[in-house]
């Protein structure tokens, strides 16, 4: 009975770690899809315009975006070598990193919220290696896939049951 209890405990711990690792893998897959989609979008646009956009109108990755109301007063101090900045705000603000911005731009086809159309799902799957395609399909079903009891993954070349 004691051994069964220990095994039960070990089983719960492993399932919790697997859930976290699936969330981590999902984030990495989203980042890969969003990045490739952005690069392809810009490539198509440059081919159409036969030239890259003016350098001062693009923001290269990586970047951080901070947004606040236009009525916010920002007191900014900068060191002479521009290696230190201090911002004081009199209002709230939001901070987002580049991957969050790409998701909001729709570069990950809404996979993070399970709102991916079948057309976009095809494109998304074409942007990842074969061994990850079944994950992308799982993600398109919505965040519930992380808690799904039964999930299998196409591994090269055998099919292994990932979770029971």
């Amino acid at each position, binding site marked *: 009975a004691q051994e069964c209890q220990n095994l039960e405990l070990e089983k719960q711990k492993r399932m919790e770690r697997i859930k976290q690792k699936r969330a981590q893998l999902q*984030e990495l897959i989203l*980042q890969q899809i969003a*990045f490739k989609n952005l690069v392809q979008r810009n490539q198509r646009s440059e081919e159409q315009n036969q030239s890259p956009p003016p350098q001062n109108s693009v923001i290269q*990755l*990586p970047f*951080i975006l901070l947004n606040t109301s236009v009525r916010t007063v920002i*007191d900014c*101090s*900068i*060191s002479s070598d521009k290696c*230190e900045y*201090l911002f*004081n705000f*009199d209002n*709230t*603000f*939001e*901070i*987002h*990193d*580049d*991957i*969050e911005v790409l998701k909001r731009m729709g570069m990950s086809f809404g996979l993070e919220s399970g709102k991916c159309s079948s057309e976009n799902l095809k494109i998304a799957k074409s942007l990842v290696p074969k061994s990850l395609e079944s994950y992308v399909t799982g993600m398109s079903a919505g965040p519930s896939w992380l808690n799904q009891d039964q999930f299998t993954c196409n591994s090269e070349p055998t099919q292994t049951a990932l979770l029971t």
Partner: protein
Amino acid sequence: RTRILVSIGESFGASEKFHKINQMVSSSERSLKRGLDMSSAPKPLKRL
């Protein structure tokens, strides 16, 4: 626990921390509004 530190400058690194920061700042807005009801003047902020 009076601040959140994030390392920036690399791609795709710290989304989680920014969610925390945004929650911390937006929740302060609500408490700030409650504070204003007690008309407590905001503290002067330090400069660099």
